[in-house]
């Protein structure tokens, strides 16, 4: 089995079939809160991709080469949340200093990411499930791109829903949640899409 094919398949399955929002339920708060306008959802999504990738690249080696040899693997949650929070601040610092244009489009979403479950969920899941480093990267990449994809799609649907004639009780969040349910059903249908490939 080609490692590259396995890598791509892992990315695709954590992106679509096991989508981070619609089947793993990470990051529902920004999914519902920042999806009214396409622009904001795009900014949020890109910021999440960036932070998840950085967190995956740092947390996995941190766990394997520092926490486990030191005999304190049980401190993982505390360490991860601190690493993620510092990462968010440092990223914000850098783009504030060196790229005002990037800050203009991403800056305001960065502080929101510390309390985004998706980042901690991916970092914690990678080590809890005992994934290898390559698989962790695939998981991080697939998860974050899946988040970007779904939040942008969802915001496009929501802008249409704003003008649609929905019953009064369903206005706002309820109809958005029902829409999310239908999207989840659609993604379930993709399971086993590449089952012709022998692993």
């Amino acid at each position, binding site marked *: 089995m080609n490692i590259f094919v396995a890598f791509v398949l892992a990315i695709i399955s954590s992106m679509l079939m*096991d989508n981070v929002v619609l089947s*793993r339920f990470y990051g529902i708060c920004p999914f519902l809160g920042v999806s009214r306008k396409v622009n904001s959802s795009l900014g949020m999504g890109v910021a999440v991709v960036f932070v998840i990738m950085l967190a995956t690249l740092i947390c996995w080696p941190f766990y394997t080469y520092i926490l486990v040899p030191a005999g*304190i693997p049980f401190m993982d949650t*505390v360490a991860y949340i601190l690493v993620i929070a510092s990462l968010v601040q440092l990223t914000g610092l850098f783009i504030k200093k060196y790229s005002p244009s990037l800050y203009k489009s991403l800056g305001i979403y960065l502080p929101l990411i510390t309390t985004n479950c998706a980042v901690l969920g991916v970092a914690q899941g990678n080590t*809890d*499930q*005992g994934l290898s480093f390559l698989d962790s990267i695939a998981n991080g990449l697939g998860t974050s791109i899946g988040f970007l994809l779904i939040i942008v799609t969802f915001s496009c649907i929501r802008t249409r829903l704003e003008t649609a004639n929905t019953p009064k009780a369903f206005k706002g969040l309820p109809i958005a949640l029902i829409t999310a349910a239908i999207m989840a059903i659609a993604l379930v249908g993709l399971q086993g*899409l*590449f*089952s012709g490939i022998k692993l």
Partner: protein
Amino acid sequence: MANAKHYIFVSITLGSIAAASALLIGGANYLTREKITQNEINSINKGIVAIFGQSAGIIEQKEIANDSYKYVTYYYAVSKEGSDENIGVAYRTTGSNMYGKISLLVGFNLSNEFVSISVISDEQTYAQTLTDNYIVPVQDGTRDYNDVSCGATYGAKLIRDMINDASKANEAQIWKD
């Protein structure tokens, strides 16, 4: 000057919070560690009972580190409670794929026939589909290894490999040496 004092105070506060948190977590770990290892042993015993029926117990166990069987980690000899008569053997297999780690007990009877499997620990993200579509049919006696779709492709191939590995190890009787 006042600024420096303020910063010293702030860093001392933060430092002591961090130290206290580390101590608390360490203490909690110290309190719960034994219980967690005990839980692991209990889950293996439960798995043995699930495979071989009530009143089965482990009489002998051996760690296996053989490179040609990469999933098999432990060997257990099983007997009825209160007697030394051997009624079968079980292998503990541990492996992981892109969905995570899984640990199984694979049981064989004395004439080297496959009996059943039992899950010890399951860290896989999408464990539900695996359990329903694969583990339960195997436990019910189906042994034609149809892969189930899970994610983009197969998720259950790992379990098939683990059972085959244990089966091979049992035929070679690697525990004898």
